[in-house]
């Protein structure tokens, strides 16, 4: 039978148990958000053991897309659910505007000196360059030369597209708009051309669903980043990456420390180790194929970019101009593409 004393003892035990994770947290751990998929796999395999070995810090990875990280941190109002962000340029600007980052003290990141100028600023450090272009199935289609080809046969009837929800989707649609007379701030021509071929297009999907749709043969040509291509190739999917004739797109992926982070010192250690030679070198290897940013790490020949100096010859975008327009573009895409 339940006595009051027993009930109290039980409640105390339960209460005590709920405190355990926070005790473990205080002993040397850091919670970092990470992109689901290739990034999560790579960081779990390489960064988690490296940080444990070097600093005895447990790295807890929380798989979240860039926009989800910003939304969660905004909703948490000063008590973020993780200590470090990993972001693309667009969400990075949103996060800076919303005051979600702590300014970093570069002196605490010893490997910062190994990063090229421009990759380190008061808000965080760049740890990887992503390259976006066209991916196609070489067994079913000839290689397209550029964005314009995607709107003609045989590619158009096998084309899979996504909207403006992600960085790679947004920059690809901007490049499509450019070849049809648009610009970084005028994506109208892309939507006009898409609407013309819409009945023929094989798939209009959610960004996260695209690799699966490609793998299942629902579509055979998509725009995506080189890491997705590497991951699918690693699974035996017939996929090749093409740099469009107008140039492949690149943008930096950056790490940041969250304002109100519980483990600031460990977050610095995390940033430092990701920028370090050992981790950067391991990340360049297949199946991860990250483009390294540490100057001491040679870029392997199988990567699309031969050195970071090449970045200037790639197509880049000004996200300060894009961000304010994006909500309108998403709305427009919905209306134009809706059945």
């Amino acid at each position: 039978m339940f006595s009051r004393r027993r009930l109290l003892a039980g409640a105390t035990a339960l209460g005590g148990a709920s405190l355990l994770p926070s005790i473990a947290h205080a002993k040397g751990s850091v919670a970092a958000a990470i992109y689901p998929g290739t990034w999560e796999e790579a960081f779990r395999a390489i960064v988690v053991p490296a940080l444990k070995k070097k600093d005895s810090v447990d790295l807890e990875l929380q798989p979240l897309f860039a926009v989800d990280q910003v939304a969660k941190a905004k909703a948490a109002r000063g008590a973020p659910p993780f200590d470090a962000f990993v972001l693309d340029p667009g969400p990075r600007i949103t996060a800076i505007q919303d005051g979600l980052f702590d300014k970093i003290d570069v002196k605490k990141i010893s490997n910062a000196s190994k990063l090229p100028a421009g990759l380190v600023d008061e808000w965080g450090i760049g740890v990887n360059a992503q390259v976006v272009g066209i991916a196609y199935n070489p067994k079913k289609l000839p290689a397209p030369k550029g964005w314009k080809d995607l709107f003609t046969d045989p590619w158009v009837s096998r084309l899979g597209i996504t909207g403006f929800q992600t960085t790679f989707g947004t920059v690809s649609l901007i490049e499509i708009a450019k070849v049809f007379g648009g610009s970084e701030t005028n994506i109208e021509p892309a939507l006009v051309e898409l609407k013309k071929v819409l009945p023929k297009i094989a798939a209009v999907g959610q960004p996260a669903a695209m690799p699966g749709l490609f793998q299942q043969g629902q579509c055979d040509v998509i725009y995506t980043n080189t890491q997705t291509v590497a991951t699918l190739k690693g699974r035996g999917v017939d996929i090749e990456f093409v740099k469009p004739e107008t140039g492949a797109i690149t943008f930096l992926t950056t790490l940041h420390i969250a304002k109100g982070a519980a483990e600031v010192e460990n977050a610095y250690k995390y940033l430092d180790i990701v920028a370090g030679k050992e981790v950067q070198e391991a990340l360049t290897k297949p199946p991860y194929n990250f483009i390294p940013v540490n100057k001491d790490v040679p870029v392997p020949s199988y990567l699309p970019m031969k050195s970071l100096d090449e970045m200037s010859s790639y197509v880049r975008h000004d996200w300060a101009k894009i961000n304010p327009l994006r909500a309108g573009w998403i709305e427009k895409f919905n209306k134009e593409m809706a059945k």
Partner: protein
Amino acid sequence: MTPERATGVARPRRKLPLAEWQLALPLALAFASIFLAPLVMLVGVSFFNDDKITQPGIGQWVKFLGDPFSYKVIADTMLLGIKTVCATIVIGYPLALIYLDASPRLQKVLIFIIVMPLLLSVVVRTFAWIVVLGREGVVNTLLLQLGIISEPLRLLQTELGLVISLTQIEMPLMLLPLISVMSRLDPNLRDASSALGASRWRTLFKVIVPLSMPGLVAGCLLVFASSTTAFISQTVIGGVRLIYLPLLIWQQSLVVFNWPFAAVVSLTLLVSVLTVVSALSYLGRRSGGYVHG
């Protein structure tokens, strides 16, 4: 069905002793804090004009309700729910009848098959449907090999494909309440009906269907509410050309960060679903009255 209805005799309502009322208090407080408070906040947030939530106003409501596209999305979302409900009834009801007539051993196997979709993550179930419905999926390969079609059918990213997959995904929600009500029916009623000269069909429509109505209505409610809000299935199987309210909520809250607009769309979804659900449960009560009245 209330006991009063079942017996046809209204019992005097027993007054709840204070102690019992107090026992329910923790649950009531938890409910208030985790459901009502966020709901009130949601309503509050929807009455701000800007995404920084600083200027109060009805701008977001005006924007949403003044756009004809919004009504199309609301109608499409409700229609998706209705189509899924119809499909689950057409397939689920005969299945429930088969279950009733099956031997206890077969019933165990059937219940396992019925519950199985619930044991899988919705993400796994949804991606499995990509494999089934895809251009090179099971259905297309089979039809091509049998020579029934010469070109693969487009099943993924169509409403038909979405309704097919939602029917399978939501089927347990229809079958479980239906079976639980139907297995309580007195088997003598069927014998009595046939002894009085009714055909099997007449027995089905005049005896079994009316008596199973509470289970059927409960199933419809669950399937409707679940399929209209099934964001993952809607976006992964339906693609982004089929736009439903959950996709709009996701875009506005997680991509654009316009929370007031997301709150407006969320409340619209809540009200639309509640309206249909209330209508269904009203019909359910009416049919209960018809059976026992």
